[in-house]
């Protein structure tokens, strides 16, 4: 009970900090007559976000939903396929020796540089952006999950083998639960990468979406929509983070004690 109250107090305190920061920002812009094309005031950003019908030929909701959909689709795909691939790698030694070196090599490359290539291959828009985001976010989750599936207590494995457990049972009861902390830290890395990939994809290959809006506002020297879009992008990223965090608590209730301790 008291923990709940203290966490509520914590949230209030954070909100207070944010309010102070916004007030200070407004004050600085007003007092020093900062030009709007350098830094817009929070009021201007707020006005732009809530009282502007159209920015860059589309409504705010069109931009937001485009980016949101790209992020959700690419993240869902990355998480599902990455997890399955890691299980396959861990299941079969042949697959591991075939796939793992390729994944390690690809992981060390700056994948984001591929973005313009997907534009040539897939054309403008949704498909290209989702692909770019997947390529950026895919490898951390595969590598992390594989490590998690591998790093099982040998004694535990011996015990279960002695009890005649099948390979499937070992996976379901030991390897997969054991890998969850690694999966979630991989998912968190991938979440940021997905957002980065989507936004850069929209920078180079799009006519809609928050990344496109940021790029377009730069060309127009129109900063209020740019700042608004930056906040929205950050909010989406943090939302994804929070979603993974709540999933983590749900799927690994046993881990909560450890987290509280640290």
């Amino acid at each position, binding site marked *: 009970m008291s923990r709940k109250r203290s966490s509520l107090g914590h949230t209030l305190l954070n909100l207070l900090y944010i309010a102070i920061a916004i007030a200070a920002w407004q004050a600085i812009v007003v007092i020093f007559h900062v030009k709007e*094309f*350098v830094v817009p005031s929070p009021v201007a950003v707020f006005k732009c976000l809530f009282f502007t019908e159209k920015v860059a030929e589309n409504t705010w909701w069109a931009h937001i939903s485009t980016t949101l959909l790209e992020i959700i689709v690419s993240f869902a795909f990355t998480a599902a396929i990455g997890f399955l691939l890691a299980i396959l790698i861990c299941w079969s030694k042949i697959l591991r020796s075939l796939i793992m*070196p*390729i994944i*390690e*090599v690809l992981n*060390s*490359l*700056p994948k*984001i*540089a*591929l*973005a*313009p*290539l997907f*534009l*040539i*291959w897939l054309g403008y828009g949704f498909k290209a952006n989702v692909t770019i985001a997947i390529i950026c976010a895919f490898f951390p989750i595969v590598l992390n999950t594989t490590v998690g599936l591998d790093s099982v207590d040998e004694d535990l494995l011996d015990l279960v083998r002695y009890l005649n457990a099948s390979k499937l049972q070992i996976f379901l009861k030991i390897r997969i639960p054991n890998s969850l902390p690694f999966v979630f830290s991989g998912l*968190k890395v991938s979440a*940021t990468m997905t*957002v*980065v990939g989507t*936004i*850069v994809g929209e*920078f*180079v290959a799009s006519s809609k979406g928050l*990344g496109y809006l*940021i*790029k377009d*506002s*730069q060309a127009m*020297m129109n*900063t209020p929509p*740019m*700042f608004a879009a*930056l906040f929205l*992008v*950050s909010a989406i*990223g*943090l939302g994804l*983070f929070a979603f993974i965090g709540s999933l983590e608590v749900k799927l690994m209730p046993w881990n909560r004690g450890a987290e509280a301790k640290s």
Partner: protein
Amino acid sequence: MNKRKSVSFNAARIWEKIKTPAVVLALLILWELCVRIFKIKEYILPSPIVVLQHLFLKQPDANYNWLIHIRITLTELGISFAITSALGILIAIVLAWSSTLKKIFMPVFVFLNSLPIVAIAPLLVLWFGYGLKTNILIAFLVSFFPIVINTTVGLTEIDEDLLDLVKYLNGTKLQIFLKLRIPNSLPYIFAGLKISSTMCVVGAIVGEFIASDKGLGFIIIASQYTMDSPPIFASLILVSVFGVALFGIVAALERMCMPWYFRVRERG
């Protein structure tokens, strides 16, 4: 039995050494074969041989003067990575020195690190204009937080018993830093530097995508407009080589700076 084991052990060790180049070579050969067998059009996927030939075309025939662009990108990478690592480690030392500063700034850094920082690149272009300086700044901002966070963690997470012992022996704060905290943080610093080296390349390339008329990122974007794919692939290969080389330098430095760490690990 024993002999056979040692032979297979040696083979495994040799494979471990040549694995990465072998995989790269295999992928390149597969790529060349695919292009030849399926007769893929050059603008979709040029063969590696065509791509490499492009890199060595002399100026009047080549679309780009490669040396200029390579030099620009390398300058950006070198400067931004140097600033990131120097400033990152320095700030981490300050944070580890004063627990008040750590309490104030560490949450801010962790928060910023979870944001997609690349997204502010266009804003920086607006503020600082096109070109080298802006790209260095973007690469710096993108790669800065991992190294600060990692180093701070490495400097502060110290075996309490060891700390007690040194305090009991009247070790000064400076001595604790020099003899305990900094050696303890080295593995964390290098892990952070490895992340930052990759991020630096990402930042520099994205910077060149949106704000540059020179550099390999610029070549990628400019060739995309004209659907001229051999230069894109040539740039991609160069960018990858630079990224891997930067990573390799960090890894080599790591081996030089903390030989004890690898001795312990090799012994198992």
